[in-house]
């Protein structure tokens, strides 16, 4: 292997591999400046469907699935870092890579399933946003769906979404109040810690559906495509992999930390009183220990912010997937006239989602089951992603190490097991 000298300005040092040449020592200042796109991804991970799912899990099974959220954190970080790495090494987005590596027979169904799940989730998220505005204004949610969808489609197609998303993160930060709400709800912290570190498995349909939805909303397929496409748009390359890894890990840890406190707050407030979540107002009650009569306002603002942040990500991921598959021009930096098919897919995704939202009857059920669908699709994409990033031909010196492989296969295995148990239980005993 050739030896070269890094141009760091530091004492001369030789490196023996491309991977070593890209390892950087980062100062705290570097790390703070690095944090950005990964935090947007983390924010988009906690979309209204995610908030609803965590709330339902907390209200239905209490803290019993905290361990699953804890377990899913390193798995999520590993999968997201693989998505970022494969894009930086191959200079390609995920759909285009799936097409060139596995061919259309594998790539097409994988991408189409992701697109279908995204559009259904968008519909459910629109419903949730409508319900949140209804809580604030008293005007029925159905009247809000079209204007909200039109607003978000306009922002995604005609404005610079990446800049807008940085402002939207502040709206989502409202959910940090769940941390205070969880503390003020005075849960039994012994129970919380025990359920976080000791697995507690039940074979009931309720529990298994909740587990699949929780995994599906946490390790969610559209984020893999969004992360990879984001790296291609940023054009940072392998020299920034250390920074990217920190950014991704920060975003995912923050996202799961909020999810954890949503479950703790809803578990302490709703599960302990055997209350169920049937409406957005029920879900908002978990914030009452902190916000009292303003819980509804706080919850609504958070859901609206989460929707504004996540729905364009869902639509764009669908467009990146289909455009990558077909070889169309793509990218949010492009003008609509310069990448017409890409933006037509975004527009169509909004139209279909709007139609789904208008025709759906029960927002909470729609939100929850859209995440169950994500949970069923995710393992397929994780397996493909691990195969891609474990190929030395494709990745060279940047091929997965053993810990990443273990975490990647572990993520797929955990999700397949949860899916299989849930499908068996629902097939034999029906939906709860």
């Amino acid at each position, binding site marked *: *292997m050739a030896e*070269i000298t890094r141009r760091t300005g530091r004492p001369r040092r030789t490196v023996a591999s491309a991977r070593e040449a890209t390892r950087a020592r980062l100062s705290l200042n570097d790390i703070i400046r690095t944090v950005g796109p990964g935090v947007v991804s983390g924010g988009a991970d906690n979309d209204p469907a995610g908030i609803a799912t965590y709330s339902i899990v907390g209200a239905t099974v209490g803290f019993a699935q905290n361990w699953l959220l804890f377990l899913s954190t390193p798995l999520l970080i590993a999968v997201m870092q693989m998505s970022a790495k494969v894009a930086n090494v191959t*200079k*390609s987005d995920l759909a285009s890579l799936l097409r060139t590596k596995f061919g259309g027979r594998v790539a097409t169904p994988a991408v189409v399933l992701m697109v279908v799940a995204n559009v259904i989730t968008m519909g459910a998220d629109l419903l949730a946003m409508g319900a949140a505005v209804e809580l604030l204004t008293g005007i029925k949610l159905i009247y809000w769906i079209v204007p909200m969808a039109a607003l978000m489609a306009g922002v995604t197609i005609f404005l*610079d979404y990446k800049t807008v998303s940085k402002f939207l993160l502040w709206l989502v930060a409202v959910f940090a109040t769940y941390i205070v709400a969880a503390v003020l709800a005075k849960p039994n912290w012994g129970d919380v810690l025990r359920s976080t570190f000791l697995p507690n498995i039940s074979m009931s349909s309720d529990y298994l559906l909740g587990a699949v939805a929780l995994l599906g909303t946490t390790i969610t397929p559209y984020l893999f495509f969004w992360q990879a496409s984001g790296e291609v748009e940023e054009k940072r390359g392998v020299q920034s992999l250390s920074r990217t890894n920190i950014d991704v890990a920060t975003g995912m840890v923050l996202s799961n930390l909020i999810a954890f406190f949503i479950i703790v707050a809803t578990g302490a407030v709703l599960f302990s009183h055997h209350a169920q979540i049937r409406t957005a107002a029920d879900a908002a009650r978990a914030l009452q220990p902190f916000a009292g009569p303003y819980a509804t306002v706080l919850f609504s603002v958070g859901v609206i912010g989460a929707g504004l942040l996540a729905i364009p990500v869902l639509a764009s991921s669908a467009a990146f997937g289909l455009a990558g598959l077909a070889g169309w021009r793509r990218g949010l930096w492009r003008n609509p006239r310069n990448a017409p098919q890409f933006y037509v897919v975004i527009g169509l995704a909004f139209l279909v989602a709007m139609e789904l939202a208008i025709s759906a009857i029960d927002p909470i059920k729609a939100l929850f089951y859209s995440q169950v669908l994500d949970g069923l699709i995710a393992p397929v994409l994780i397996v493909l992603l691990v195969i891609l990033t474990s190929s030395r031909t494709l990745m060279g010196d940047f091929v997965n190490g053993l810990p990443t492989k273990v975490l990647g296969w572990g993520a797929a295995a955990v999700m397949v097991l949860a899916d299989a148990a849930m499908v068996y239980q629902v097939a034999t005993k029906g939906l709860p």
Partner: protein
Amino acid sequence: MRRPITRAQQRRRSSARVATSPGKSPSPVDAWWASVLAGDVYEPHPIHREVKVQLHGGSLRLSGELETAEDRDVLVHQARQRIGHGIDHLDVSSLRVASRQEKPGILEQTLISAFPGRVAAEYARDFVLEHSRVVPKRNDVVDAGNADKLRVLLPEDFARQTRKEIDSGHTLLILKVDETEAFKVRELLDEDTRSEWTVAVPPQLIEAGR
């Protein structure tokens, strides 16, 4: 193979094209400015593709990210030249220079694109080099006539796979570029040419002394 040109030569050529003498066909940059002033603000700049343009009345607003301060200066200078010739006011406050931590000269990457024939591959090469302003370390068009080159140009796995593509009638365009420029080249090859597919050999250390 074409004789490589240096980045400085390429920049001089780009700048020279900006000021086209009367009677000659306009350069891509001049043609772009003409279309912007005519009202077509959606056509991407031939080199700085991420620059966004808004034209309201006589006010021109340029925004987006450029690679270097020099690029920004050149673009702003070109815009200023047009004040009084189609625009009255210029706003470049949102025209930023990208802050890049990545350093050239450490890694290199080879990109391979498949085309239906040699002519298409050669057009694609000219287009990509013109629009990316990248100076490749190698650029080769390989078809059945010179397929033996693959063993020299590519690692064994890639040489074997691409040989099959050539046997099935494809022509390959192979560009070896600095890793920091590979995203740009790949994007152009993949999305803006008639390539059927594009793959990248993993980044490799630039060998000492080269």
